[in-house]
């Protein structure tokens, strides 16, 4: 995005230099602030998208700190941090997973699963009456959706903050 800034003065070069210096100091700061603000919007939209894709709170920390915007106070680069398993959840190929006693988190989920068949088998695995059983897992695509929601807001947010950097 290219923006032309025109500085008009009443012929006083000192005033023009002061204004330019002020812009030079403030504009990068405001743009960084704009990035942080958009980062918060992206995080919010990504979490909402994850929730809508059926990712539940007990499956990990995606709805809390598992998705967050990371940017240093003086950094011009920001990252959307996301747990690695979020990427797998988003784009894995459908496959079978064995539920065993050693996979405690999965077993906890299986014991309260919606399907009564899975619940029954999970209890059998817990009581060691069954060694393991397989469940079929499918991806929950949410990253592209979350990004699609947040992306159109980037331009207005940056534009507004940048104009504040120039005007004041």
């Amino acid at each position, binding site marked *: 995005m290219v923006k032309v800034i025109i500085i008009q003065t009443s012929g006083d070069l000192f005033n023009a230099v002061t204004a330019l210096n002020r812009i030079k100091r403030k504009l990068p700061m405001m743009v960084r602030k704009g990035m942080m603000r958009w980062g918060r919007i992206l995080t919010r939209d990504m979490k909402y998208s994850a929730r809508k894709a059926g990712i539940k709170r007990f499956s990990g920390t995606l709805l809390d700190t598992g998705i967050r915007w990371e940017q240093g106070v003086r950094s011009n680069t920001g990252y959307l941090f996301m747990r690695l398993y979020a990427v797998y959840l988003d784009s894995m190929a459908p496959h079978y997973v064995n539920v065993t006693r050693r996979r405690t988190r999965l077993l906890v989920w299986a014991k309260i699963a919606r399907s009564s068949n899975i619940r029954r088998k999970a209890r059998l695995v817990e009581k060691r009456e069954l060694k393991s059983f397989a469940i079929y897992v499918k991806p929950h695509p949410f990253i592209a959706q979350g990004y699609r*929601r947040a992306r*159109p807001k980037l331009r*207005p947010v940056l*534009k507004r903050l940048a104009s*504040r950097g120039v005007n*004041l």
Partner: protein
Amino acid sequence: MANQVTYTKLFSESRNNVVALITSSNVSDPTLSAAEFRKWIYSREPDVKASSFKGYPYLIVHPCDLDIEAEKGSLDGKSKFIFWDIEVEIVTSDRGYGENDAKGLANIDAISDDLLQTFMSMTNRKTLSTNSMKFVNPTTTAVGTEVIENELVYRRSIMISFKSRIQVSA
């Protein structure tokens, strides 16, 4: 009914003033007649759990963001420039029965028209200005589409910003 934004109510009153303007007859629900009422303004995404959700269209007035300008305050530091940013999201559904089908874009445009008209109206701007929310500047985003619980929805955000130099300390 707009109220004065003071340093004790920087977040709450600014959002209340925006919501008050929207809830009055300025912005009308295109799917309802004037005699009917339903909740359609939220502070977060409504909990849509099934495809039978009847709440479309709806508006989300997000909590406001605040910037306090470090420079250009008064000499005693009691007054500063404050910037408010409030995002209003409009979500409409493209599904409906009979003549109400495929009205998503028409509805989102009608609501956006009403919202912009409300915030650009001189009367409303003067009201907000007297309550310390000056220089209303709405910016809009492109319309996006997505699928929520098998419902095809349109979504647009209107970001409204205000600015004022007010007292920030007793």
